[in-house]
């Protein structure tokens, strides 16, 4: 297979190369534009300006927390989707992909309608215990989880469905109970997919903006993540916006490259 792919690589039809090059340019030119337009003399000042480190730190922390939540609830759901004959499984799979096609702002509004002070569940939390979720750190994580969860689930679900499950059957025949089989056989098998899904979820959470600003608002130090900061910066400092965008981009790329080789074969 690999050889065949190698041979076609030498004689690529022009009809494919031209649009492919257009795609590369389309991705590269805006990013290059950021680099070219960046006000380099102001770079260090801007990055060191009050609140930027705080926003970046908050983004890294919440994106990581979001990824943990996604792993905790996403892997089990992916397993249910791939390995059980639950009725309505197909519908469930559609439901999982909904946040992918939904504008994130709508996700934020949906979270309000469920967990806001006037929300279906949030109303009881507020009336009984005085707990109000919007505008909190938790709200940031929930908003990010809403948009990032599908990335993990789809990745793990895909891996589970493409592995036949013979090893799991063998393990069961050898007397392991279902939980042991899941932990000792299934999980190691889908390890790379879990890693890839986790990294995608993390990256999506790091860049999340719409659901976050809608549901969690924007308060420096508490809910102002880096993308939200970039957006508010746009109100009166376009150059500053470029600097912050580059910073966020750089951090994301560095983390992804660092992770790729070691834990995430699925992405390389």
């Amino acid at each position, binding site marked *: 297979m690999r050889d065949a792919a190698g041979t076609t690589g030498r004689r690529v039809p022009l*009809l494919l190369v031209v649009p492919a090059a257009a795609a590369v340019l389309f991705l590269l030119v805006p990013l290059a534009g950021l680099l070219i337009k960046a006000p380099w003399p102001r770079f260090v000042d801007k990055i060191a300006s009050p609140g930027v480190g705080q926003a970046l730190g908050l983004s890294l922390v919440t994106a990581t927390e979001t990824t943990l939540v996604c792993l905790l609830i996403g892997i089990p759901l992916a397993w249910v989707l791939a390995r059980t004959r639950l009725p309505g499984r197909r519908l469930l799979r559609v439901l999982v992909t909904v946040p992918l096609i939904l504008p994130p702002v709508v996700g934020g509004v949906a979270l309000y309608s469920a967990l806001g*002070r006037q929300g279906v569940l949030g109303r009881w939390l507020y009336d009984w215990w005085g707990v109000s979720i919007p*505008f909190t750190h938790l709200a940031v994580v929930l908003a990010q989880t809403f948009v990032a969860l599908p990335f993990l689930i789809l990745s793990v679900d895909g891996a589970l469905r493409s592995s036949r499950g013979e090893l799991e059957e063998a393990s069961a025949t050898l007397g392991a109970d279902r939980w042991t089989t899941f932990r000792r056989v299934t999980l190691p098998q889908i390890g790379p997919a879990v890693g890839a899904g986790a990294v995608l979820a993390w990256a999506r959470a790091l860049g999340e903006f719409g659901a976050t600003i809608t549901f969690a608002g*924007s308060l420096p130090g508490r809910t102002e993540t880096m993308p939200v900061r970039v957006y*508010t*910066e746009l109100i009166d400092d*376009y150059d500053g916006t470029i600097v912050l965008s580059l910073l966020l981009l750089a951090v994301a790329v560095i983390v992804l490259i660092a992770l790729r080789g070691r834990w995430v074969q699925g992405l390389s």
Partner: protein
Amino acid sequence: MSRPRGVARLVPVVLALALTGCASSAADDTTSSGGASSSSASGEINVFAAASLKESFETIKTDLQKRDPGLTINLQYGASGQLATQIQQGAPADVFASADETSMKTLTDAGIVGASTVFATNRLQIVVPKGNPGKVTKLADLADPKLTVVTCAEAAACGKTQKKIEAKAGITISSDSQEPDVKSVLQKVAMGEADAGLVYVTDVKSQPDKVEGIDFPEAAEFGNQYPIGIVKQAPDPAAAKVFVDYVTGEGQQALQTRGFGKP
């Protein structure tokens, strides 16, 4: 074209091109037929306006297009500073209506907008959900950390005014969220998710079923001036001028009904 597979892959592209082609020619048709049907003002203009002007400008648009059916007015709203940035980056705006003089000055100083005229004034008001669940009565109440308060980000026009008011009143508002524009502040109070916020009088009037406004003395002193100006490179300056003249003339009625003060 002897490679069917290559061609097949291009089908979506061709379809997309065909569709966009249709769309743009359709748009051209509307513009030209619209232009032909009127002898008074005609043409198409893009107006970038501060979010707080939304309701009034929608009324103005309807009224003016009724008067001059050949005129097509496209309105786009946002935070004044953000709109100014977009215009500076080449967004196709013909008219800019700002909620503060700072954003307008950026554009006039850069030579992008010619002269500007103040056409309305506004002032901040405390906004609370209908029934005032947080029992807010005065500005100082917003310093209470137990209340959920939302305000404008400092970079936004409303946020700048708010800072001056805070300094004058000697209080620090305990804000739970600093929103990018005044409409999102209003929305969060109207949803009942926040106990109070600071928005313009006109915003309070725009949602009479959901919110109430509370006046406070410092607001009058720090009123906002709303300037309007024509972008120098506007392709149709005559049409842009018709709009600006209407806003400073007949359109005043619509603005004042919504709670704006006279210039």
